[in-house]
């Protein structure tokens, strides 16, 4: 644990510049008596794909929501590209957990994607042909072009997740934050989503994903952030995704066999 604490100290000392897509300092969030996230620092590397990992109830989603201003923290600061969140909202795209919305809502796939353009459209701006074609392009990128006119409740879970990703693509952001995008989706969707995320990274965008499948971390991501209410480790996969840090984050909840497997995968 001592070495991990030293790791934290190092990131605090870093200067937050406008190159840093997301920097969180001393963030504490509580829903009741017990903090969900306690005194967390996080520095997201530009142009990287970062996984936020931790056991159930470790505060992964809460960390993301607090970074986005969806929940109010008790204390702490969030800066996005070196500025307060409010000034940089246009550069952030967010994919919430699929289960967080009611898919029976009376709307079509294309309307959900167009929601990603609402900052551009403003209160009363009309949806024009160019907005429509951009939204269709985004649907195309996730392989959902043929579903544009479907009611969203008629889609499978994986298709719903892809529509959410298409909406984020329509936001044309520099920082993409996704909450459990692979939860309960089919293998084809998982492949489609990871392909899109990798293309975003190649285009120089920054991607942060709340992720729970430890087996795919090394394949999908280059940075990890391990959390269990407090920060456990942060860094490249090689630095921070080790048997030691995982044991520390998951405690007894992670079977030794799993750790062995991951250790072998890491070489």
């Amino acid at each position, binding site marked *: 644990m001592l070495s991990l604490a030293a790791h934290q100290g190092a990131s605090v000392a870093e200067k937050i510049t406008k190159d840093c897509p997301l920097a969180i300092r001393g963030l504490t969030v509580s829903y009741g008596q017990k903090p969900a996230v306690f005194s967390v620092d996080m520095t997201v590397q530009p142009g990287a794909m970062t996984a936020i990992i931790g056991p159930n109830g470790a505060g992964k989603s809460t960390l993301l929501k607090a970074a986005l201003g969806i929940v109010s923290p008790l204390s702490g600061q969030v800066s996005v590209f070196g500025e307060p969140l*409010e000034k940089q909202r246009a550069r952030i795209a967010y994919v919430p957990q699929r289960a967080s919305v009611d898919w*029976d809502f009376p709307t079509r796939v294309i309307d959900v994607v167009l929601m990603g353009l609402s*900052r551009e459209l403003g*209160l009363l701006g009309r949806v024009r042909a160019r907005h429509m074609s951009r939204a269709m392009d985004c649907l195309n990128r996730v392989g959902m072009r043929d579903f544009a006119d479907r*009611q969203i409740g008629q*889609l499978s879970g994986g298709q*719903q997740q892809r529509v959410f990703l298409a*909406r984020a693509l329509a936001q044309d952001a520099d920082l993409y934050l996704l909450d459990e995008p692979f939860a309960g989706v089919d293998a084809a969707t998982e492949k489609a989503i990871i392909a899109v995320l990798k293309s975003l990274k190649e285009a120089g965008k920054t991607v942060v994903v709340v992720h729970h499948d430890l087996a795919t971390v090394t394949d999908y991501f280059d940075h990890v952030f391990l959390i269990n209410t407090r920060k456990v480790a942060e860094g490249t996969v090689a630095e921070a995704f080790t048997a030691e840090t995982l044991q520390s984050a998951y405690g007894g909840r992670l079977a030794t066999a799993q750790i062995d497997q991951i250790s072998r995968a890491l070489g």
Partner: protein
Amino acid sequence: MNGEEFVPLSLTPLLIGTFAAIACALPGNFLVLRKQALIGDAISHVVLPGIVVAFLLTGTISTWPMMLGAAGAAVVAVVLIEAVRRLGQIEAGAAMGVVFTAMFAAGVLLLEQTYTSTVHLDVEHALYGNLESLIWLDAVGWSSVLDPVALAGLPPELPRIALTLLAVSVFVWLFWRPLKISTFDEGFARTIGVRTGVLGMALVITAAIAAVAAFDAVGSIIVIAMFICPPAAARMMTNRLETQIAWSIVFAILSAVSGYVLAGYGPLWLGAADAVSAAGMIATMSGLILAFAALWGPCRTRAGAPGTA
């Protein structure tokens, strides 16, 4: 029926009933989708303390102080419900239950503890309007619609509910996009800068204003029915919110007109001597429309709850 009879006796109640129905159905669409539809019921209870306080302050039972008191109480209730919901971190329905029973009880207590109970305080009127009495005796026929002298004798409820309908429509039109996005996905709405707390409060306050204006004209029965029945029936006709709103307006008008006509003439057709309450019949018609939509509406089945497909 010719204009000489229709315009003075039926035109104004029909218009007032229709405007009230639409003014409640419009915000009702969002309330139903947000699972806050019972707010109409809550508001009908909480206006009581407002009316009593308005009487205590002014000493009169005229319409304006009563309406302001009712509107004030409705706004206080809405703010309290939101506060209880957020501070207690409980669901909206439970917060409503706590606030509206407490405020209704406070109203009864206030009524009994002050001298108001000896005065004839017209709570009846505020809670159960009388649509049939809102006639336009200055009118002699269709020509009166353009006659300024006759127009001056219009029942004041008509311009009041018309203004309310206009205000509600402007609110929904202006905030259409953020209302739709935040109703569907509140978290996402916040990340794009929508102040969802303020917007949700504004929606409920708009609904409260519509409710209070409608109570005054047509009574609480219509209000509670119109917040829920036309939007819920409309939801089963379509899978698009834009179309749902249009259907809800059609159903609101249909309920108001058919309910008014049936209340006036239905019993006569059946051989009975008296008419029945128009407000009650309008609410009944909206309930029937909802039943038909639930039985035969094209989009009545839940297409797919999360995780089923």
